[in-house]
């Protein structure tokens, strides 16, 4: 596989295999699924992701992005568990999640082109996960299915709170 393609694939896989990223993207997708205008939330997320990547390109120093991601995951998990997802909160958390996820995904590549390919892959991977999970959750309309998702949200919130405590200890 060529270096560029490998870098792109690595970027795609990164948000799907990094636990903190999955813990954030999963509840964000579940919130997204309950929003009347999903496209807007997704757009906010992508723009924030792009802004975060721009910050990486501009060589921003080390940030507490992982801690912020976990805090956002906890908040989103609580929103899913309580089935309370006001539009502005969803937008705000999508923006913070996008920027933090980007800042927490600095490419390891040495060549500039490969670094850009990794960033593009991360964008594609994160957005694909959001869209696919939101589409699946959007079909969960039976009462017990909605309850299952709320329980999943509470598990995500609980996990994120515990890990957050370990991070800030």
């Amino acid at each position, binding site marked *: 596989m060529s270096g560029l393609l490998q870098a792109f694939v690595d970027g795609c896989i990164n948000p799907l295999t990094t*636990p903190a990223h999955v813990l954030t993207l999963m509840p964000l997708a579940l919130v997204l699924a309950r929003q009347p205008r999903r496209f807007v939330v997704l757009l906010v997320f992508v723009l924030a992701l792009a802004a975060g990547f721009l910050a990486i390109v501009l060589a921003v120093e080390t940030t507490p992005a992982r801690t912020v991601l976990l805090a956002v995951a906890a908040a989103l998990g*609580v929103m899913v568990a309580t089935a309370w997802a006001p539009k502005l909160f969803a937008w705000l958390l999508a923006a913070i999640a996008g920027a933090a996820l980007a800042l927490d995904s600095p490419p390891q590549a040495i060549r500039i082109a490969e670094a850009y390919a990794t960033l593009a892959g991360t964008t594609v991977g994160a957005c694909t996960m959001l869209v696919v999970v939101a589409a699946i959750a959007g079909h969960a309309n039976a009462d017990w299915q909605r309850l299952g998702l709320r329980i999943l949200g509470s598990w995500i919130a*609980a996990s994120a709170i*515990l890990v957050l*405590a370990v991070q800030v200890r």
Partner: protein
Amino acid sequence: MRDPEHSNIAGALGVALLAALVFASRSASAHLVDGSATGGFAGGFAHPLFGLDHVVAMIAVGLWGAFLGPPAIWLLPITFPMVMALGGAIAILGVPVPAVEIGIAVSAIVLGGMVALAARPPLAIAVLVVGAFAIFHGHAHGAELPPGTDAVAFSVGFVMATGLLHLAGITFGLLTRWPAGCIGVRAAGVGIALVGVVFLSKAI
């Protein structure tokens, strides 16, 4: 027009797929980090299962929820892990909570007793009782978080095991729909309370 049965099956598969995605991401990353990181998830998953006092209290939460019916049947299992996580966070941050082991034993007695007596307090009281005991359980788990463990893997495993114990309790509790099942569930409540008494006698 959409076939409702088809929609239900698709939804069920969807929920299962979402849960599987969380599991899959954990094991995948565990292998990426280091060879033993799977132990983080396995260790966290096993943690609530190897303490009988924890196990019976978790099952009692599910049983009581099933006894109380909707919305308690889902509200209690949603409340418990989130409050438990706060208890765990308190422990991880080094804030002491007095008489944790006694609190856990009492939780088994009280929750088992509620099931045995088929108690039906107002929902807010039930949530308050379950939430209060969740602090003790969370604190005990948080204080025992092994140093150097993959915290995410451990936490996800530990929360999932706790949730599955609740679901086991709920599933068993659904027997209350039948008179004989109701007796069986209340008898289980007696058993849980007795286990709590044994642990309380050890703790004091």
